[in-house]
């Protein structure tokens, strides 16, 4: 018996998850030149280093352009109608939808091959030197700008605060990778610290707890044995009667780099009918070369009998993609991080229609946590939490039960802080959460400024805007309707009974964005 031939002989690095070039960070997208062109910036982990791309990776930026959908205001929204919407999206993305694509692979250590597939003018390609802005001319004369290389990471966010708000233990504790149940601990999610929550409340003796340090290490504690519960009944208040914010406003990505694929593309290259097709939807994907295809040989085909589902799926891919495995997708910020519980098998990019019901349940779960926090601050909440005085830990098995709670959050129009998002003053409907997150795409409205949720501009504080989903957009503060940037308004926090008095996330990036292409700032002088 060959008793040493167990796969554990090689499967021995499961404790360490290396920094992966397949990890997509963000997808930014906004119109330029009065809506005649669109910029997309796909950012990813700077591995092996900023400005150097991994030759085993393939990146895709998928694009589709179509008309804006106007939801009739009078329409009655209910569980059936939203599930019907998800089904319609599914039919669209599985059916007639044709996408254009920009595919990027490493050609030499100093260059990438950028291929443009499925565009109306035909398919073409260009070799682009990394870390350099490259002009590309399409066969029909369209001018494209491209940049692939190292940049400052344009994401500015109090990630630790976010993880604290959702009780994400691995940021604060040593959590063995086997203990999947100890990722999000089963206590109420919250924006305000809970009285007696020893698991996540700020510790004076460990101010850097959960914050990743410049050397890459994160101060953590040993995970208590559990059960991980919270039995309190109120938010924590200090001697002055102030709540303690779980956020600090700190930029946890400050001083860190990414690799980026940035493109400026004429709208008319994507669709010949730019007048009608005012939306450009995009999502990014990372694929890693399969092991069998790294070897210079013809690998075996998976057999129909052994794995028919895989054969069917792979038949839909072109010859090149069949040699790769899809690893990560990116469309909307927080579609994965907040709404998918960080489960890899749910990172499906645009094709997340089947997760619609899950989103509703997850949003309701978050609502029971964040909603009472918002109400405690004296703000009106879109989530129906029965006026609960404190955050509640609640999960749902069925959409039907979750839906009434979350209906307003899902369907309310998200007000914008001013009219700058709509520079032409057109009759463009405000967007609603359910259509923002399903499908999981960055949907750029070419008649707007492209600020989130009409796209995503670099300067948008999307993490704070995401929290605004739980604000009741019909309410007013200081004589103005609530809007997506309300929680980023320092004046609001100055008057709130809270400490620290800060917006949850930083208001701007640590490096100034560039005024011109590729817009993301130069990388920091380090390899991390």
């Amino acid at each position: 018996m060959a008793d040493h031939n167990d796969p554990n002989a090689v499967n021995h690095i499961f404790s360490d998850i290396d920094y992966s070039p397949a990890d997509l960070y963000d997808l930014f997208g906004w119109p330029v030149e009065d809506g005649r062109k669109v910029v997309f910036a796909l950012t990813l982990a700077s591995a092996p280093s900023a400005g150097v791309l991994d030759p085993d990776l393939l990146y895709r930026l998928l694009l589709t352009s179509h008309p804006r959908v106007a939801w009739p205001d009078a329409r009655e929204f209910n569980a059936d109608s939203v599930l019907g919407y998800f089904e319609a999206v599914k039919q669209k993305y599985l059916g007639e939808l044709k996408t254009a694509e920009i595919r990027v692979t490493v050609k030499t250590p100093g260059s990438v091959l950028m291929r443009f597939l499925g565009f109306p003018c035909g398919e073409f390609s260009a070799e682009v030197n990394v870390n350099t802005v490259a002009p590309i001319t399409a066969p029909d004369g369209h001018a494209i700008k491209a940049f692939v290389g190292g940049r400052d990471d344009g994401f500015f966010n109090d990630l630790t605060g976010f993880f604290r708000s959702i009780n994400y233990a691995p940021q604060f504790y040593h959590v063995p990778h086997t203990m999947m149940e100890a990722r999000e601990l089963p206590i109420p999610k919250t924006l305000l610290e809970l009285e007696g929550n020893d698991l996540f409340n700020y510790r004076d003796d460990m101010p850097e707890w959960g914050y990743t340090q410049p050397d890459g290490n994160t101060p953590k504690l040993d995970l208590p044995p559990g059960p991980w519960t919270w039995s309190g009944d109120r938010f924590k208040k200090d001697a002055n009667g102030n709540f303690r914010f779980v956020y600090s406003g700190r930029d946890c990505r400050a001083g860190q780099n990414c690799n980026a694929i940035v493109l400026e593309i004429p709208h008319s290259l994507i669709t010949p009918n730019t007048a009608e097709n005012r939306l450009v939807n995009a999502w990014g994907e990372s694929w890693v070369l399969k092991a069998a295809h790294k070897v210079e040989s013809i690998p075996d085909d998976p057999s129909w009998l052994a794995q028919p589902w895989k054969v069917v799926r792979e038949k839909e891919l072109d010859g090149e993609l069949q040699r790769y495995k899809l690893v990560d997708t990116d469309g909307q910020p927080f579609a994965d991080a907040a709404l998918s519980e960080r489960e890899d098998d749910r990172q499906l990019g645009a094709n997340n229609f089947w997760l619609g019901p899950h989103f509703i349940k997850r949003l309701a779960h978050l609502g029971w946590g964040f909603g009472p926090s918002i109400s405690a601050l004296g703000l009106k909440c879109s989530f129906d939490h029965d006026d609960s005085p404190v955050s509640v830990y609640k999960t749902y098995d069925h959409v039907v039960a979750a839906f009434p709670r979350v209906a307003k959050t899902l369907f309310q129009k998200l007000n914008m802080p001013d009219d700058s998002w709509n520079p032409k003053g057109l009759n463009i409907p405000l967007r609603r959460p359910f259509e923002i997150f399903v499908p999981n795409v960055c949907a750029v409205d070419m008649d707007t400024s492209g600020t989130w949720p009409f796209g995503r501009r670099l300067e948008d504080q999307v993490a704070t805007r995401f929290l605004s989903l739980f604000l009741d957009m019909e309410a007013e503060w200081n004589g103005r309707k609530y809007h997506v940037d309300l929680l980023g308004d320092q004046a609001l926090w100055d008057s709130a009974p809270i400490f620290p008095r800060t917006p949850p996330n930083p208001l701007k990036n640590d490096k100034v964005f560039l005024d011109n292409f590729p817009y993301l700032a130069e990388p920091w002088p380090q390899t991390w």
Partner: protein
Amino acid sequence: MVAASANEPAPRPVAFRGFKEDLEHAQSEVARLATRLSRQPCDLQGRVRLLYRMFHRASLSGRMTYFEEMDAELRNVLRDFGPKEDICLLKVNLDFRFHRLHEVRRDMEMAPMLASRVEGKVLLADLDMQEGRYRDAQLALESLIAKSPTWDILARLAHWKGKLGEFSEADGLYREAEDELTAKQMLSYAWLEVQRGLLAFNSGNYADAWSHYHRADSSYPGHWYTAEHMAELLAAEERFDEALVMLREVVERTDKPELCHALAEMYVCAGRQDIAETWFNRALTAYQESARRGDVHYFHHLADYYGGAMEEPAEALVWARRDIELRSNFSTQTALAWALYRNGKLAESMDFIRLALTSGVRDAAILSTAAELFEASGDMAASRQYTAAALKLNPLHRRFRMHH
């Protein structure tokens, strides 16, 4: 900017990182973490990371000294931090590797939730297999695959199918496992290719075996594990000069006693009994030292050693009995049956070979042993049947082969 056809596959620079680079990286990672942790010994996460890196280094190099260092550090971490689940998981893996099955059970009990995890279930299936609960093992693996067909579980089931003589199905599962791997897992890919090569080798298909071994070597260059199997194949093809050079180099790199043993047997087959003696002695010294320390890892090798070239059946019986006390499966049962037979205990021997055969095992070496035992017992019909079955499985099964 260069215009080109879009259908042209992207040219890819192929940069193969192989054994040498990985081992250097593992060494430097261990050194780096050890230095940092000497200043921060209370950093649990860092200590666990170091342990996993040490395990990686030991597995990669095959060197027992690295395993021993890692074992010592593992005990320190357990003492300092208690039975955390990931530490226990690592200990289970380590104990499994060295056949310390009683320890495996204790490790699992230290972290009770581990048995409910996928990683724990996989190891329990391995334990079932080692202890002869084949059906339970197979069902557990199939159930895990139905939920999540990860490459390592597919490979385990493939190994089991291979032992049942279902070579085609086994190869299909290995292929499926390969399809789960990316270019970042070339070590695992090469390992799977070696398993496929071994399947071909065990069915006498040397051309296919070469094809897989070459693919393993080109996908993960310089690994002694691939070279070990190539050396075996060379010897089976009676290309002893090449085989000896290759295996000797592997021995020098790994210092594994079982490979010294294999080298000695190879020298015997090559007609160099004079040189073989040195290597037999080297292997025996290491086996005995290990046993003196209380380790159980080499019991089966000791049974093989004394029952094979040394022709000391009484000693072989001692070690075969000690091995089967640890784990009763078709492999240890066959070894014990053979040792009993060589000690004139034919009736008891027949009990054990029958027990081994009831497992459904379809391994040419085991069937061939059964044929000899049935012949000795006078059951010529059964002997002929097993002889024919062994030949059908592998017409070349009497050629040189190693105990991996």
